[in-house]
C-alpha cells in the first residue's frame, strides 16, 4: 500500500520536499489558529478573511509582488476593517457582510484578469485561488517559517486569556482581560494564518484547512489540550497526504494531468470531518443518557 502511495521520485523531487515542509508548517499554524476560531464561533469571520485575502493576493500578483504579501496584507486590512465595523461575532447568515465581501471578490476578479492579460505569467488564477505549493520559491520558505513562528508564539502568549475570553467573555472581563485587545490580536493572527495557508491550498479553499481539522478534533475529545494536539495531527495528515496524492495523480492517467493539492486536502479534510461526526454519533448512541438525580438535603427549618 505504501508503495502505491509513494510514487517513484517522490522524495527525490526538491519541490515536493519543499512542499512537504511548507505544508506541514502551515498545517500546524492553521490547526492552532483554527481551533480558537471554531471555539469562538468565528468560522464566518475566517471565511470573510479569505475573500479579502483573495483580493489581496490577486492584487499583489498584479503588482508583481509575492502573493504571500498580498494574502497577508489583504487579510490584515480585512481584520482591521472587521474590528472597526464590529463584526467579530457576526454569524454567516448576515447579509450585509456577504454583500460587502462581494466587492472584494469582484476586485479579485479584476486583478486576476488584469494580471493574466498584462503579464506573461500563466496559471495565476489557479495559483492564487487554489494554491501553488509545488511552485513555492525557496526564498519564500524562511518567510513562511518566521511568520508561522510569530503566529504560534503569539497564540501561546495570549493562549490562556484568549481561551478564557472564548469560554466566557464575562469571566474574562471580570478578571481584567481586555476583550477588545485580545479579540483584535486574534483577528490579526487569524489573518496571517489564512494568508499562509493560501499559499498551500489557495485563498478560496483555505477555510477548509482552518476549521476542518479543529472541528473534527473537537467532536472527539473532551479537553482543550487534547483538541489542539488532535487538530494538528489531523491537519498534518490532510496536508501531507494531499501533497503526496497530488504528486501521485500525475501518474494516474496517461495524459499526465495531475489534480491540485488543494483538491486532495479538501477531500481528506471533509472525510475526516464526516468520520469524526459518525464516531461522535455512534458514541452518543452507545452511552445511555445519565439521568441526574439530585438528592436535596432539606434541612428542617433554618439551621
Amino acid at each position, binding site marked *: 500500500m505504501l508503495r502505491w502511495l509513494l510514487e517513484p521520485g517522490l522524495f527525490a523531487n526538491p519541490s515536493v520536499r519543499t512542499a512537504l515542509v511548507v505544508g506541514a508548517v502551515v498545517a500546524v499554524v492553521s490547526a492552532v489558529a483554527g481551533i480558537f476560531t471554531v*471555539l469562538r*464561533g468565528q468560522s464566518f469571520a475566517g471565511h470573510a478573511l479569505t475573500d479579502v485575502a483573495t483580493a489581496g493576493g490577486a492584487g499583489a500578483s498584479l503588482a508583481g509582488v509575492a502573493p504571500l504579501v498580498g494574502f497577508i496584507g489583504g487579510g490584515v486590512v480585512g481584520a482591521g476593517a472587521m474590528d472597526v465595523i464590529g463584526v467579530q461575532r457576526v454569524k454567516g447568515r448576515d447579509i450585509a457582510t456577504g454583500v460587502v465581501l462581494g466587492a472584494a471578490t469582484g476586485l479579485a476578479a479584476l486583478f486576476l484578469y488584469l494580471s493574466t492579460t498584462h503579464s506573461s505569467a500563466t496559471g495565476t488564477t489557479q495559483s492564487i485561488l487554489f494554491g501553488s505549493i509545488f511552485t513555492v520559491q525557496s526564498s519564500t520558505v524562511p518567510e513562511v517559517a518566521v511568520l508561522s513562528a510569530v503566529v504560534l508564539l503569539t497564540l*501561546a*502568549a*495570549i493562549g*490562556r*486569556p484568549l*481561551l*478564557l475570553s472564548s*469560554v*466566557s467573555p*464575562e*469571566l*474574562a*472581563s*471580570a*478578571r*481584567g*482581560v481586555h476583550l477588545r485587545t485580545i479579540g483584535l490580536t486574534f483577528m490579526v493572527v487569524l489573518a496571517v494564518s489564512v494568508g499562509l495557508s493560501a499559499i498551500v491550498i489557495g485563498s478560496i479553499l483555505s477555510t477548509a484547512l482552518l476549521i476542518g481539522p479543529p472541528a473534527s478534533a*473537537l*467532536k472527539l*475529545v*473532551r*479537553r*482543550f489540550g*487534547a*483538541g489542539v494536539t488532535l487538530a494538528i495531527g489531523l491537519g498534518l495528515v490532510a496536508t501531507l497526504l494531499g501533497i503526496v496524492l497530488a504528486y501521485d495523480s500525475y501518474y494516474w492517467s496517461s495524459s499526465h494531468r495531475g489534480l491540485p493539492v488543494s483538491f486532495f486536502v479538501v477531500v481528506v479534510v471533509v472525510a475526516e470531518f464526516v468520520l469524526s461526526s459518525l464516531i461522535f454519533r455512534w458514541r452518543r448512541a452507545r452511552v445511555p443518557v445519565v439521568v*441526574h438525580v*439530585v438528592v*436535596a*438535603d*432539606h*434541612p428542617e427549618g*433554618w*439551621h
Partner: protein
Amino acid sequence: MTLEHMSEEGSELLRVEDIDVAIDGREILTDVNFRIDHGEFTGLIGANGSGKTTLFRVILGLQSPVRGRVTVHGEALSRSNRSIGYVPQKLLLDPDMPIRARDLVALGIDGNRYGFTRRTRADHLAVDEMLSAVDALAFADRKVGGLSGGEQQRVLIAHALVSRPELLLLDEPLANLDPGSAQEIISLLHQVARQQHVAIFLSAHEMNPLLPVMDRVVYVANGHVASGTTEEVVRPDVLSALYGHHVDVLRVHGRVLVVTGPESDEGSTRADHPELVVE
C-alpha cells in the same frame, strides 16, 4: 494574598463612597454608601432592574461611576483586582465547548496571565482542593457545557475562589434554583466563606433564604441604598424612605414580608416587589 490584610474580623475590606451611576444618561443609582468587612456575609437585596448588577460592575471596575469612589483596603480599584472574585449568574456556553469543569477552575488561576506559563503541581492541587470544597469532584472531568445549572454554579464558585480572593461577588446565584438547591448553595457559600476566609457579597431579589446567614444587608430600591444589619434596615421607616412611599414590614415565623401600604400611589404593583410572594 497580602499578609497585612489577613482576614481580621471587623476590619474594612471594601468601601463604596458617594457613588452615583448613570447609563446612557439615565440615573441608575444615587448616593450609594456602604462598607463590607472581612469575612462578612452581605446580601444585596433589590427587585429585578433595581441596579444590582450595575453596582457589581462598578465594584469590579467595569463601569465608571459618575461620582464617588470604591476602595479596597483603602486603595482605589485597579482593573484586575486580585482581591475580588466574581461569579456571574449563568454561563452562556456552547455545550460542546471542550472545557472540563476542572479546566475552568484552573483558568481561575491563570486565565488572565499573558506569556508562557506552565501549571505547577501546586496549581493542580489548588484546583483539586477547591473542587472538593464546593463538592464538585464528582463531575470535575465532565464538560462544563453539559452540567446542570446547580453544578455549573459550583464550578463557577470554585473558579472564582481558586485565586484566593478576599471578597466574592455573586450575581443572583439563587435566581433559577428551586428552594432546596438554593438552600444547598447558601450553606455551601457560608461554609466555604468560613473555610477560605472570604467575604461574600451576593445579590438576590428575595432575602428570606439569606436571613440566617447574612451579617449585613444592602437594600436597593428606587435608585437608593440602605445598608446595615437586617434589624437596622428592614424596618418600615427606613424602607418607606427608600421606596418613597409607605411600606409595611411583617415578620411571620422568622420570615420577613415587605408589603406596600394602602395609600401606595405611583402605580406600584406586586410585580415591583417580588418579596411579596408568600413562601
